[in-house]
């Protein structure tokens, strides 16, 4: 079995009295494409936000490449109002800000595209490379880092070529059509040199043909950059087509896990998506 | 946008062009017309304007020059004063008069010195005005003297042991005078409680409470008239019984208006007393000035709506006359030549004889102490005090 990349263990995220993610555990291994699905409001994006450090989970632990990147236990006011499970299992608090997590090799895209609006397509990619700079603010200001700067620019251009956006490199990012903006977001994430790529509804708003192209594209970059991909998606064709494994959650809880075939036939999943008659 | 801009430019050009005329010597009037010291500045300006109405021309090199006053408003603020001073320099004035308020004079002094234009302070009493600027002279006494006078007065007249001294943060006049008062008062064995308020303060009750609870026998608060009216008003509503003393700024109708009908004791030192008839020049000036004020309603408004002769008006008058003498002595309208001639000018003005020491200060040694009469709404003359008397 290949190496474990992401290990999510008993993660609970509670906002006030609302438990958005409830005792969620997942494992993602190197080279896999794993999908996280579930009805609207099931807590998928919240789970992503816990992994990427945007939220600090109320309880639970997340390991990346065998190293704990997030760990927390209910404390303060939450101690009394905690409504999840496994309280007392964790006693440490490990916090990493999103930028640190990105630096470790986890990159992401956003459900509602978040490109740098005032910047060109090219600069959007270039900004993502800022993280790997070796120059300090003085050497950068006085242009003592030209070698590094030129390398960055070259690499950014190459990345844009891969997705066929080199022709619009000098256009404003927000002037691109929707589908290209989605791709640009993925390229921008790639520019941080991730090992694990988190895609939050990459096919949202795309037509079937575009979705199919996107599926091929995800596979292509996965192979090309040796990625592990973890995505949230609603387009079942895409999910079933490219995923190795699927996690299904509803009301913050995992209700199923397995290969696309297994999940497709799982009665709990069908119930969650179609609703069950209460008799 | 462009159109408006060109229009504005054209208008500006037109105006500057029309102002250029021959045989005119320009005297800059650097005074506050607005801000905390606006009321006092206006009184100083009318003194200068009256002087100009008496001596409207000056003989230079056998030619008669018309005097033109270039009046700018330094807004009682040191940063605005710099712009106002630059405006005067740009207008090409030969000499500058003013300002009411020491801080603005010190700020403007840098600009005048840089442009080598001499300036004559009328009522700016802080030592720094002249000692820090080679192009500033003045016709009034200084704060170390004034502070000592008032400290003596507080002790002799009211038997004060403890004085509450209140000054405005960032105002050289009030801080300076307060400091010199405190020094003199302490050196005579008194106790001083020092406090400062920030510009724009409206509530002085806490300060007055501090004075009361600190057991002060007198309050010394050499502030602007704007502050004074608030302070007096609040002191009256709190029934403050201790005397309130101040410096020359308080010799203003603003104080009389605020104090009228209250039972406060308010005294201040000043440069001049209109009822002092020992000098013929002064008597003549008072008579002429009152008549001029009554004939010019707008000037009378600037004087606070009455014809009481303020000391600063007298000083403005004297400063103008000194400037005229200096121009005559230099026999030139060139500012550098006037600056060279100025130190040796000796005249007898309405506020006493004027000659300058090496720093540029007038050799003046007499202060008048007055009391605000809360019934009649006028100033009552109390006494005069000289340096020689103090030395005893």
């Amino acid at each position, binding site marked *: 079995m290949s190496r474990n990349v992401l290990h999510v263990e008993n993660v609970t995220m509670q906002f006030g009295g609302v438990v958005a993610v409830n005792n969620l555990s997942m494992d993602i291994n190197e080279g896999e494409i794993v999908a996280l699905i579930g009805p609207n409001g099931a807590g998928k994006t919240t789970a992503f936000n816990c992994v990427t450090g945007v939220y600090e989970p109320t309880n639970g632990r997340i390991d990346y490449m065998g190293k704990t990147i997030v760990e927390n236990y209910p404390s303060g006011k939450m101690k009394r109002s905690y409504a999840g499970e496994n309280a007392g299992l964790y006693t440490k608090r490990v916090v990493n800000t999103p930028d640190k997590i990105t630096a470790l090799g986890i990159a992401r895209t956003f459900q509602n595209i978040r490109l740098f609006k005032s910047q060109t397509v090219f600069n959007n990619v270039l900004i993502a490379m800022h993280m790997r700079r070796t120059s300090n603010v003085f050497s950068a200001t006085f242009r003592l880092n030209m070698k590094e700067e030129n390398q960055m620019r070259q690499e950014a251009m190459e990345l844009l070529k891969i997705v066929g956006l080199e022709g619009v490199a000098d256009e404003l990012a927000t002037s691109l059509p929707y589908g290209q903006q989605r791709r640009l977001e993925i390229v921008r994430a790639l520019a941080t040199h991730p090992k694990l790529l988190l895609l939050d509804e990459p096919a949202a708003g795309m037509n079937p043909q575009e979705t199919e192209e996107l599926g091929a594209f995800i596979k292509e970059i996965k192979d090309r950059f040796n990625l592990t991909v973890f995505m949230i998606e609603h387009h079942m064709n895409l999910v079933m087509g490219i995923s190795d494994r699927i996690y299904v959650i509803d009301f913050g809880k995992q209700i199923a896990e397995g290969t696309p075939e297994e999940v497709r036939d799982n009665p709990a999943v069908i119930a969650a998506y179609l609703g069950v008659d209460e008799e | 946008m462009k159109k408006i801009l060109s229009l504005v430019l054209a208008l500006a050009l037109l105006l500057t062009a029309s102002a250029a005329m021959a045989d005119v010597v320009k005297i800059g009037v650097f005074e506050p017309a607005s801000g905390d010291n606006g009321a006092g500045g206006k009184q100083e300006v009318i003194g200068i304007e009256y002087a100009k109405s008496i001596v409207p021309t000056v003989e230079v090199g056998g030619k008669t020059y018309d005097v033109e006053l270039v009046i700018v408003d330094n807004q009682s603020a040191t940063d605005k004063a710099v712009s106002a001073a630059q405006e005067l320099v740009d207008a090409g004035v030969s000499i500058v008069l003013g300002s009411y308020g020491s801080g603005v004079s010190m700020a403007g002094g840098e600009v005048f010195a840089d442009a080598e234009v001499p300036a004559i302070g009328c009522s700016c009493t802080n030592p720094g005005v002249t000692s820090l600027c080679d192009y500033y002279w003045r016709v009034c006494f200084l704060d170390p003297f004034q502070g000592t006078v008032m400290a003596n007065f507080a002790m002799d007249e009211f038997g004060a042991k403890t004085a509450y001294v209140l000054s405005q943060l960032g105002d050289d006049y009030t801080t300076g005078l307060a400091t010199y008062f405190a020094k003199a008062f302490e050196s005579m064995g008194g106790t001083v409680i020092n406090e400062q308020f920030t510009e724009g303060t*409206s509530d002085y*009750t806490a300060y007055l409470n501090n004075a009361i609870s600190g057991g002060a026998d007198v309050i010394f608060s050499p502030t602007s008239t704007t502050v004074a009216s608030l302070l007096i008003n609040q002191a009256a509503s*709190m029934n403050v019984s201790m005397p309130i003393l101040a410096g020359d700024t308080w010799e203003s109708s603003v104080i009389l208006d605020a104090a009228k009908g209250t039972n406060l004791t308010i005294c201040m030192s000043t440069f001049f007393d209109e009822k002092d008839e020992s000098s013929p020049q002064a008597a003549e000036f008072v008579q002429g000035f009152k008549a001029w004020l009554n004939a010019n309603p707008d000037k009378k408004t600037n004087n606070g709506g009455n014809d009481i002769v303020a000391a600063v008006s007298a000083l403005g008058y004297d400063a103008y006359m000194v400037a005229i003498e200096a121009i005559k002595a230099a026999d030139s309208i060139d500012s550098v030549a006037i600056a060279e001639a100025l130190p040796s000018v000796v005249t007898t003005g309405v506020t006493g004889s004027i000659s300058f020491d090496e720093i540029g200060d007038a050799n003046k040694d007499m202060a008048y102490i007055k009391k605000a009469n809360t019934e009649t709404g006028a100033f009552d003359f109390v006494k005069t005090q000289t340096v020689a008397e103090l030395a005893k």
Partner: protein
Amino acid sequence: MFDRILPYLLSGISVGGQYALIAVGYTMVYGILRLINFAHGDIFTAAGFFMVYIATALPVQFAIPLVIALTVALGFTVERIAYKPLRSAPRMSVMISAIGVSYLLQNLMWYVTGGLAKQYPTIPWISESITIGSATTKVVTLITPVLTILLVIALVTIIQKTKIGMAMRAVSKDFETAQLMGIKINSVISTTFIIGSLLAAVGSVLYFSNYTSVTPTVGAMPGLKAFVAAVFGGIGSIPGAVIGAFIIGICENIIKALGYTTFSDAFTFALLIVILLFKPTGLFGEKTSEKV
């Protein structure tokens, strides 16, 4: 001991009440538009000048309602001219427009008055002196907190019980949704400005009866402090603003009593910063977070 603090406490409560009346205007506008209305302090000053000029022609009992009406009209006009056209603009633009209005009002008042302090007219009864224990003060000092609390209770009732109050609450909760639900945003906003200006006018009458000199920039400091009070109490919350204002008014006077008069203004800001660091949305503010 109590004798010694009483005068400070009295003026603290009084000035706190006056700050509160201004602060409510800030907090309501912020609650609805998310705008720091920098011009609010100048509207307060303008109310002072209205009184100065109107009282020369009319007796006080007629002048006060007229002053309040004019101030309300000014607040309404400012909103219509300077803020309404920017409804869809970024928040920053509106805030800068507010700074611009403040600049304009100050310069206009400077121009009209010639930049000189004007004496506020004496209002019968409330300008009279009164002695309480060890302290002698003006009647207005005692009226202010009472009137402030009555007005705020009235305001809170309006907001809780009336239809327009409900609309206000809806708009402050969610601007877009309220608009979609058919609430007339513009009339709600206008009402907010009218109420804010009305309270500022009342505050101005009380304030200047105590501190009887009006200058074009006199409102800047009380305005800023009232705003600080609003932030302190949790901007958007009316009780928060009122409590914040009283706390600031009293603290400021205690600082003066302790002899640190130089720092009485700075202290207000220091207090604010400390509060913000520990409770970033103020004492009673609601927590907000951006959706990712």
